[in-house]
Each structure stands twice: as structure tokens, then as C-alpha cells.
């Protein structure tokens, strides 16, 4: 199943459908589908069509610039890059353990990032599909339709996202290009006024997040046949977990479970990630295909992100989210959930966890402290790993005696999920498209599967893209026989 439908035997004799760019994801992706004369699917590939070497942009820069510089990699998740780079540079400056104030400020920033990212994805990007159906009228299947049918949903999404952005602004120092996190710690703590400003709304954010979990749970309960099987990707799941196996989105060690939920490895220090993982390449995509080296490319691919994290951990250390995790696990009857739509459910559990964590942190006086930075024995190489909203994010740097970066390697969440996304779209193409007349609604099923992963193709490709959808039918001779555009500006 792993490589089924990846490469057709006789591609020159097949009809080609291109979905380009994939809409409602960040960046520029393309799906090509090769069909036989009877409309059976022979090949499906999610391509990344643009690549720019951000690592080269970083090399030669002073290490202390990097946590700020890497935010320019992506307009969607700059905070995740800011923190992952800071963690790597903590190693460089010998900061083995941050001060409580520094670590908690970084965590507050990080949970703010999770809150805003997950809220945007669920309320604005995914909800049109989930509420109206994947094949519903395309004119209605957007956030406008959601607003018209459920006016409060979009408003809550905006306000949740705004709250997360405010937590980022206050901890990072400004809305964008924040400088809050630096090698060895932070450069500001909270004032009492800033803490109180966030405090006044946080209980509402927790309540709305809890409602969001209930909303997606009801959708699962209402159509379990669809939600349990759509875009199913039985795969190894990898994430960081804390010392006691608990969910920890900011720091921990690497753990992986197999498709049946059995632990494959645990407590692996991510400083050695390059011994664990190999970044495979394929001739038809610029995005790499990482795999667990010891298992090889066929067996070693895996998925990351909310669905992996919620099922990888043994518990969630906030009460409301933990209760929801237990419900999630119980729903699987002892087996992991691998349906792609379960990503949304797991994502909303994490949304709730982030909101609860922010609430807890705002009651912690360490956030008001003045002990901000530590340093120790200087090192020349460091790896920083963080659980970004979309999954595990790895930053790896080497720094010379002149403090200049000589090597940089970034493995972003979407790259980890590359193979899993391809498997998901092939599964959907085989079940929903094969042998049928292709319609926009059917093609949207492909996009729904991709959107479950909330891919940030901007990060994966290092480019900011536009996202109208174009579908082109091309015959075996390369001639365009049909063309469908949606949302072109």
C-alpha cells in the first residue's frame, strides 16, 4: 500500500488531471492524477513545485541573529521557527537549563502560536468542508457560507486567533519579527499590566476551545463511516513527549508508536536526530521524504502533528484536554485512529490544551521575573526541536569560532508528513475518484485530505504562494481538453 499508485507503469498513455495550486493550504502545491480510459486512477502525486534554499540564506550569519532571521521563512508559523532556532542556539551558548521566567515566557509564546494557528485552521480553513460536505456547492463551501449558516463560529475563530496573536505580541515584543526569545533565554518578561490584559479574556478562550472540541466530536459521531476511514493513513507516529510520557509541545524527547500503537522507540535525545532520520529525495518533488533510517524508505515513513501527538503521549497535563484525550482514545477501542479527519479532532484537543496552558501560566508569577538569560560553555553545534502546530520542527546549526553559522538544516513539519500526505491523497483518489466522472466536488475530496494535515508548504518550500485552484485535464498527447478554475483572483 505504501507506494501503491505512486508511479504508473505507462504514464504516457494516461489522462492527466492537475490540481494546482491546492487551495486553503499555505504555499504552492500541485496534485497530478493520471487516469486510464475508463477513468480508473493509475497514479497520484502531491508535488511541491517551488523551492528556495533558506538554509543558504542563514549560513554566514552571526548565530545570535538566527532566531529573528528565521521568522522570515514563513508568514504562517514564524514563532515556531523563532523558538526552534532559539533552542538550538541555547546549546551553542551553553545554556543547559533556562531560568523559570525564560522557559515560561517561551512556553506562553508557543501556546499562543498553537492557539492562533489551530483556531485559524479549524474555524476558517477546514470548517467549510466539515459543515457543508466535501462535494457541496463550491460557492457555499467557504468561510462565507460558514458565517451565513453559523455566524458565531467565524467570530469565535477570529477572536481565538486574535488572542493567540496578542500572547505572541506581548511575549515576543511586537506583532511580527519579534525578538523576545534569544540564545540562552529571553529579553523581556511580562509586566503586571500585560498579564492582566491577557488574563481578562483567557477564561473565554478556554470555554470556546472546549466548544470546538465538542463540535468536531459531534461531526465524528454523526458520520463515523466517513470520519473513521476518509484518507486513512496507517502509519508510524512520531513526536516529542515529556519526561513522564506526557504531551509537551515545547520540549522533550522523541517517541514513536507503530500503526498499532506500540512504542517503537522512546526517550531519544533529539540532538542525534540525524542518526535516526534520513531525508530521502524523489525525482518528481522538491520536498524531501524523511524516513526512519533503520527501517528504510518503504517502512520507515511516519506522520507528525496533532494526530500523532495526541496518540503518542500517555497523558495531557491539563485537565479539560486530558479528559478529551481519554475520550479520543476510547473512541478508537484500543487502536490508534488513522483517518485523516481525526487530525481535526486531535487539533482541537490541542487547541484546548494550549488555552488551558495559557490560563495556568498567567497565574504564575515567574512570568514577572527578572532573571532572563543564562550562558555556559560555548559549543559549536546545536539542534533545537519543538512541536510546532503542524508537527515536529527540527533546526540544526553549526557555528564557527567567529560566531558565524557554517551549516544549517531545517526539517519542517510538512516535510515529515510528505509521504503520509501522498498516501492519504492516493487513498482518497482510489476510493472516490477512480472509475467516476471527475467533478469539482470530487476533486475537493483530494484537497480535503491534504488540508487535514494543515500543510505549510511555504515552510516546506521556503516560498510564499498564492492559492487559487486550477484543474487541468490533459490528454496523453499533452493537449488540454478541459480546464476548471476556482477562486482565481
Amino acid at each position: 500500500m505504501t507506494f501503491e499508485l505512486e508511479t504508473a507503469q505507462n504514464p504516457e498513455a494516461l489522462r492527466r488531471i492537475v490540481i494546482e495550486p491546492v487551495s486553503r493550504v499555505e504555499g504552492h502545491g500541485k496534485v497530478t492524477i493520471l487516469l486510464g480510459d475508463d477513468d480508473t486512477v493509475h497514479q497520484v502525486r502531491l508535488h511541491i513545485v517551488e523551492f528556495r534554499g533558506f538554509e543558504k540564506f542563514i549560513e554566514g550569519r552571526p548565530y545570535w541573529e538566527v532566531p529573528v532571521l528565521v521568522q522570515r521563512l514563513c508568514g504562517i508559523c514564524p514563532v515556531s521557527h523563532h523558538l526552534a532556532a532559539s533552542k538550538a542556539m541555547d546549546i551553542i551558548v551553553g545554556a543547559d537549563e533556562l531560568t523559570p521566567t525564560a522557559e515560561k515566557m517561551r512556553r506562553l509564546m508557543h501556546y499562543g502560536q498553537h492557539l492562533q494557528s489551530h483556531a485559524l485552521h479549524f474555524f476558517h480553513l477546514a470548517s467549510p468542508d466539515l459543515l457543508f460536505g466535501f462535494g457541496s456547492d463550491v460557492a457555499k463551501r467557504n468561510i462565507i457560507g460558514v458565517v451565513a449558516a453559523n455566524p458565531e463560529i467565524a467570530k469565535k475563530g477570529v477572536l481565538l486567533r486574535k488572542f493567540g496573536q496578542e500572547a505572541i505580541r506581548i511575549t515576543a515584543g511586537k506583532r511580527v519579527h519579534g525578538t523576545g526569545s534569544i540564545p540562552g533565554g529571553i529579553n523581556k518578561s511580562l509586566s503586571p499590566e500585560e498579564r492582566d490584559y491577557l488574563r481578562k479574556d483567557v477564561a473565554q478562550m478556554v470555554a470556546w476551545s472546549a466548544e470546538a472540541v465538542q463540535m468536531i466530536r459531534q461531526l465524528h459521531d454523526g458520520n463515523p463511516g466517513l470520519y473513521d476511514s476518509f484518507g486513512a493513513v496507517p502509519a508510524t507516529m512520531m513526536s516529542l513527549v515529556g519526561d513522564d510520557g506526557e504531551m509537551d509541545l515545547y520540549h522533550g524527547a522523541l517517541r514513536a508508536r507503530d500503526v498499532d500503537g506500540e512504542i517503537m522507540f522512546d526517550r531519544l535525545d533529539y540532538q542525534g536526530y540525524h542518526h535516526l532520520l534520513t531525508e530521502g529525495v524523489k525525482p518528481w518533488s522538491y520536498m524531501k521524504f524523511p524516513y526512519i533510517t533503520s527501517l528504510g524508505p518503504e517502512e520507515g515513513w511516519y506522520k507528525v502533528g496533532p494526530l500523532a501527538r495526541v496518540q503518542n503521549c500517555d497523558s495531557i497535563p491539563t485537565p479539560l484536554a486530558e479528559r478529551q484525550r481519554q475520550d479520543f482514545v476510547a473512541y478508537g477501542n484500543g487502536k490508534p485512529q488513522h483517518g485523516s479527519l481525526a487530525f481535526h479532532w486531535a487539533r482541537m484537543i490541542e487547541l484546548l490544551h494550549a488555552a488551558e496552558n495559557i490560563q495556568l501560566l498567567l497565574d504564575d508569577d515567574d512570568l514577572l521575573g527578572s532573571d532572563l538569560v543564562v550562558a555556559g560553555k560555548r559549543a559549536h553545534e546545536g539542534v533545537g526541536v519543538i512541536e510546532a502546530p503542524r508537527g515536529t520542527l527540527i533546526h540544526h546549526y553549526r557555528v564557527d569560532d567567529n560566531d558565524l553559522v557554517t551549516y544549517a538544516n531545517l526539517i519542517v513539519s510538512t516535510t515529515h508528513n510528505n509521504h503520509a500526505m501522498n498516501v492519504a491523497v492516493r487513498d482518497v483518489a482510489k476510493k472516490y475518484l477512480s472509475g467516476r466522472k471527475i467533478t469539482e466536488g470530487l476533486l475537493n475530496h483530494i484537497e480535503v485530505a491534504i488540508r487535514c494535515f494543515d500543510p505549510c508548504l511555504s515552510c516546506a518550500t521556503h516560498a510564499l504562494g498564492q492559492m487559487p485552484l486550477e484543474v487541468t485535464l490533459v490528454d496523453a498527447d499533452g493537449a488540454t481538453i478541459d480546464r476548471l478554475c476556482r477562486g482565481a483572483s
Partner: protein
Amino acid sequence: MTAATLIFGWGNPSRGDDALGPLLIDRIGALLADHPEWGAVELLTDFQLQVEHALDLEGRRRVLFVDSCAGALPGGAGAEAPFGVGELAPARDSSFSSHTLSPQAVMQVYVDITGRAPPPCWVLGIKGQSFELGEDLGAAAQANLDAAVAWVGEWLNSPSPASREREGPSRRLGG
């Protein structure tokens, strides 16, 4: 107290001429202290426009969105013009449900979540040519930025959005 005027420039400062929006914000910011006649002006910047920016429209009398522009300039400005200006109306365009909203879509989000009309909004598109990672602003873009800064100064001096509409090379976009 919310400033009556908002200027919102967006773009990635590390991608060549994509920095035009944030750079205009910096340039205007440096002039504010010398121009009390402009009144209360808030300057904001971000990588791209997103849904929560609708909340930044609340309580404004006028808003100017500023972006670099690789294609056709707003307001029907000619290809050789350094910039173009267009008045905006809320619109449910293709940027809805994406990570990168148009100004018209941000205005529409405002309508949807408040039930009220947004303040008068314009877009200033400054012509850019090259958007490669790690590039500095190009010489042509620099000259275009200078011209745009001068125009924004005039716009800020205008007593009301209505008068600007009469003067400017603007055309209503979206809606």
C-alpha cells in the same frame, strides 16, 4: 484611544521588493513626529493579511493598506507609474479561506463579525520587480517607494477620505 488613521503595510522584509510595504511603514513612522497636522496615525505591519486584521479596522476613520505590486497597479495606474491607489469595498474574493487575505476580504471579515460597514479603505500598490529571498530592495523600487511616501504625506494631509477620493487617481476595487 484608537488612532483615527491606520496605515497597514505588509510583506516580507527579506524578499527584495516585497519589503516595500513594511519599508513605507518605517519611512512614515520616521516622519510622524514632524507632522502633528496628520493627527493620530497608527502604523502596523505583518507578513500578510489574515482574518484577525479585521479587528484592526475597528474605530478608524480611514485606512490605507500598502503592499508591493508585481502585476497591474491599483486604480488603473499605467505600467510605468511608481504606484497606484484604489478605493476598496468589502469582497468575498478568492483569498477567503486562505492564509493570505486581500484587503477587500479583510474588510468583508469585518462586516461578517461586526455586522457593520468598515471604515473607508484604500490600497496603495507600490511597483516592485524582484522578490527573491535575501535580496535587498532594488533601485527602481527604492525610487517608487520615495514617490509613494510623498503621496502618503499628501493623503495624510487631506482633511477627509471624501476629499482624497476626489483628488486621487483612485478607482473602487472589489465589491
